[in-house]
């Protein structure tokens, strides 16, 4: 039987002629998933990369080399800047285009209504683009995913199946870490088979956290189809104009500093004083200051100056923030939720300061200093002053 849904579409992001790393990470994960899908179901569904922009032919070719079976590209000067409305409509056109589907796989093209699966990047562009595209396609979306599995799922669900047992074949299990980092929630996007309100919900889509999956090695021998799509752009949508772009130096710099000192809920006994302690420690180490995700939710009554400087998303280390491979990482009062660990585990030398020896952060530390930061940090500062001076004299 011909199927209405086929293939996994990956929406690619790029800047200045280069891929964002997450784009190739998504293509790599898509390749692995569809290879095992095709083996398991004796099928031949494809990984289709979608790329929009101006002068993107060369990038299109590279996507095949990084693992895509086919690339559909739209090349137009009006697509140079990412404008949400235009991009959403063009992606909607591409994934429902019978002509390009025919080039990807002629035998099924006329039956296919929608992609089976779709991936976007969970970043400043992809989060919003995925949201609007999935309204356009009237289907579901899970955000900030870091694990994917395809399974046949047998379930009885009051709303989805009207209480009877049904098998949802080829279901994408989308795992997302919750804000605490301690829980993993699996999201499914399922058709409504309940006779009371039947509805098809495809594609099953998600946005994927950058830095989680491995890209494949580039292989210039890999072959695939490169298909040009000519988009229809509504003149009305061109009234939204990008007037200029300015590169900014963020007030928080996790790229250059070789040391990061981060803090979490362990500051709670005296947040104001403890943040000042951490500031002093960071100053001695010439370090940038990072925080755990719960800190960005402003849990403490502290002075406005410290609050607006530190309790902000821009300082978050973790899956909802920055990933670092600092040479020296000091985690003070950090419990070590996965959310945070994912952001710091590639660091060089890791020192934890925590009174609780069972805290998961211990597993990520080279040295675990058991004690309260109020007691430990002053000793550290004193000692650093002595030893760093020696380094400077030399």
């Amino acid at each position, binding site marked *: 039987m011909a199927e209405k849904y086929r293939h996994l579409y990956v929406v690619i992001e790029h800047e200045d002629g280069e891929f964002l790393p997450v784009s190739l990470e998504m293509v790599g994960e898509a390749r692995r998933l569809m290879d095992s899908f095709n083996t398991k179901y004796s099928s031949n569904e494809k990984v289709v990369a979608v790329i929009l922009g101006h002068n993107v032919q060369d990038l299109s070719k590279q996507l095949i080399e990084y693992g895509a079976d086919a690339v559909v590209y739209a090349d137009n000067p009006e697509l140079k800047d990412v404008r949400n409305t235009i991009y959403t409509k063009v992606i909607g056109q591409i994934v429902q285009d019978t002509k390009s589907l025919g080039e990807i796989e002629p035998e099924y093209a006329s039956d296919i209504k929608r992609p089976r699966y779709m991936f976007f*990047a969970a970043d400043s562009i992809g989060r*919003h683009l995925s949201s609007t595209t999935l309204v356009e396609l009237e289907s579901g979306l899970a955000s900030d995913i870091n694990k994917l599995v395809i399974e046949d799922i047998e379930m009885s669900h009051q709303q989805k199946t009207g209480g009877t047992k049904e098998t949802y074949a080829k279901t994408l299990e989308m795992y997302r870490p919750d804000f605490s980092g*301690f829980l993993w929630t699996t999201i499914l996007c399922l058709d409504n088979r309940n006779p009371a309100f039947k509805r098809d919900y495809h594609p099953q889509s998600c946005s994927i956290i950058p830095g989680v999956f491995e890209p494949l090695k580039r292989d210039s021998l890999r072959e695939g189809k490169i298909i040009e799509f000519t988009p229809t752009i509504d003149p009305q949508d061109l009234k939204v104009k990008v007037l200029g772009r300015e590169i900014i130096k963020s007030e928080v710099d996790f790229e250059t500093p070789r040391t990061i000192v981060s803090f979490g809920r362990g500051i709670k006994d005296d947040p104001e004083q403890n943040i000042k302690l951490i500031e002093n420690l960071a100053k001695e180490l010439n370090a940038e200051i990072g925080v755990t995700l719960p800190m960005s939710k402003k849990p403490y009554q502290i002075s406005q100056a410290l609050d607006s400087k530190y309790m902000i998303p821009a300082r978050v280390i973790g899956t909802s923030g920055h990933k670092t491979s600092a040479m020296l990482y000091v985690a003070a009062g950090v419990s070590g939720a996965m959310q945070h660990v994912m952001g710091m585990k590639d660091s060089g030398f890791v020192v934890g300061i925590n009174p609780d020896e069972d805290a998961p952060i211990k597993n990520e530390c080279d040295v675990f200093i058991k004690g309260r930061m109020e007691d430990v940090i002053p000793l550290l500062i004193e000692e650093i002053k002595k030893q760093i001076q020696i380094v400077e004299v030399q």
Partner: protein
Amino acid sequence: MGGLNIAVIIKLEPDFSEGNVSYNPDGTLNRAETKNTLGPHSAIAAHAAFFGRVMYDAEISIGTMGPPIADLALQQAQQISDAEELCLYSDRLFAGADTLGTAEVLRVGIEKMQEKMDIVFSGHRASDGETGQTGPQTAWKLGFTFLGNVISYSVDLETRMVRAKRLISLQGFPSVIEEVEAPLPVFISIDPTYKSNYNTVSQRLAFQKYQKEATQRAENYKDYFKIFNAKELGVDETLVGLPGSPTIVYKVERVPKSTATRSAEVIDGSDPEQIRKVVSKMKEALAAMVIK
């Protein structure tokens, strides 16, 4: 030159502030014992709306979907924004909705507000759900131009154009501030770093005047408050709540403890001699970097 109508969509969220938030022993949020409040990102969106009130004499409306106790969030947002219309969309039929089912309720709610909206604001994301999808999905359903990550904006009331600065952060690239221009109506999701700037004396006077008005209004918020159920809103019941939600939460599990990637040397933090050794190791780690 027409006036400006602004809507804000907000959310009642767990209050993560110390003393109000409660965590289970395993580190997860204890929802039953945690109090609720206006979400911090919703509050920033309300500040952005108030900027429109001060600068352009805009009329503000606020909408939220939630349980009856969400009137608290509406009152808090009114105190910030000086809104004169507070709408709560509340019905058992809306419960359990994912972002698509929620966006449908908000779309109908916004279209049912007293005035036709020129700008709708939402926060960056909810602090409990964290998807950040509801804003852009509501925008697309309304047919409004969506502008995300906005850190400042201005409106030209004559040309009916909005100008906005957006903060774009992409993996592996330096952050960029992009300036965009779009015709009204627009839907703006506000970046956490948004700030309102009131530069002139007359702006600051208007700020004080409306702030005072906001306090008075919030004291009598019930005079501005309306509650709508599904029938009163006239929503299509198959597009909201569970039937209108493509996604379900299939399971929630504890993230498996990662196997120790390093074996930590545990030292006593009160022993200066041990601290001395740690610092010399830290120094070695940094020295290796310098040589490289």
